[in-house]
């Protein structure tokens, strides 16, 4: 875990969410060491930093894979058989929701509405939108992430 407390020290309380996101980008999650370092540089309690980190669903306090798949589970996608997409992802990767592949390549998560309801079912991989999904498309899409 050496070196995992290294992020740009926060100067301003308002930068906290940004700093946490930076750690997320750098390590794939926000390690405890980063939380402690941010608390110290802002002179606020550790629990306050942890409270912010754990509040947002795109910031994770547990390690995630290099690529995070987020399949939308909200009603407009559900109506367009999002469950078949979830099954296709699970089958392709051999993992369930909330899990990470052994090689650390993918984490599989579900998400609430991502605003792509007109092109449902939809998912995000990292920041990229993938729309009008079918189970057949999943294999091809996953191939492009390493």
């Amino acid at each position: 875990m050496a070196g995992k407390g290294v992020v740009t020290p926060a100067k301003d309380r308002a930068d906290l969410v940004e700093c946490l996101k930076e750690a997320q980008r750098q390590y794939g999650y926000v390690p405890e060491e980063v939380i402690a370092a941010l608390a110290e540089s802002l002179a606020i309690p550790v629990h306050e930093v942890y409270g912010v980190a754990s509040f947002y669903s795109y910031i994770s306090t547990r390690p995630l894979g290099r690529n995070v798949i987020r399949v939308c589970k909200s009603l407009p996608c559900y109506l367009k058989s999002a469950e078949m997409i979830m099954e296709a992802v699970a089958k392709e990767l051999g993992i369930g929701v909330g899990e990470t592949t052994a090689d650390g390549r993918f984490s599989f998560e579900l998400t609430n509405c991502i605003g792509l309801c007109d092109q449902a079912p939809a998912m995000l991989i990292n920041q990229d939108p993938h729309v009008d999904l079918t189970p057949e498309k999943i294999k091809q899409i996953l191939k492009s992430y390493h």
Partner: protein
Amino acid sequence: MPQQRVVLKNCEVIDPKRIDSYLESGGFKALAKARREMTPEQITSEIKASGLRGRGGAGFPCGIKWEGACTAPGDIKYVICNADEGEVGTFKDRYILEKDPFTLIEGILIAGCAIGAKQGYIYLRAEYHYLLDHLQNAIEQAKQKGYMNGFSLEIREGAGAYICGEESALMDSIEGKRGEARYRPPFPTTSGLWGKPTIINNVETLMNIPPIIMNGAGWFSQMGTEQSKGTKVFSVSGDVGKPGVYEMVLGSPLRELVEELAMAKSVKLVQIGGATGRILPGDKMDTPLAFEAVLGAGAVTVYNQSRDVIDIVRRTMEFLAEESCGKCTPCRQGTEVMAEVLDRFYKGEGSLKELQNLEDLSSAMMLSSLCGLGQAAPNAVMDSLQYFRDDYESRVAK
């Protein structure tokens, strides 16, 4: 009443990557008019006279909000554009940001003139990160053309939280905190971001500002109904032939949008306004789309006869339970309990006593929740109990 393009008039017309394309179609003329020919008081009274109400769901009169911030004492004031479109089934702001970022920037700059703000923020939801560079490019071009005039416009990204679309939670999030709703008063217009007078407007609300300044309040208020002026952009999804974004004059019947434009057939029910919105059965399709009837942020999710009402309401409540910020008890606990009860009905294990409990809990949550999420969370339950009570009663354990 037909479709009309006011908010979307430049979408698919201009090149959203080039400011010159926007200028060729008359862009930034409203800003020039506001800056050269109008005082801040004149701008706010024009917006007030137009009858424009907020397009993010709550429908608060925009001019009154602006007036509050305009007259509030203080040298530092803020304009925030709420681009945290998170309501289930809403995607109109995504479409607008993608197709016409310049009108939005012009609207924000006029808002800045009106209240005397030098700093603005666009709060963009994390799920729309792929629009960040595109928006930044539009802001850069406006800067290079000299339209910012000392006004600084920054994009702040969210990190995945539905509640941050609620204005007070949004401000806490910009301040780097957990996005939790604040107690009010004080209202943002006097004590908002970092305690300074602040206005927070939805993307679509701000899109209406340049045309109102250009064409006048009278032109705008001719469109719509008594209490709902202008047009509304709807996001239509679900069991329809043509999902997408449609702009209609307010007061248009639901049927026209759902059946004629979006091509829905054999409609069982429509959810208007997303998870916190209302549910209408298929035989209420003549209901006007207006603040005085049903509207919200304009999410229209259509369900056909094959769908199970209890399943829809249960999923709606699961969403709200997950997204409740947890600060106030009625919402945090109420949404959880409702989701559990609805799950029992879904499995055919409900009881008549629990139907009564749902109703009692609904009124307690509406009355005592801190913000709009908890206050509106029971809507789907109450509406479905009114229109589809048989569906509940048929799921009572024998």
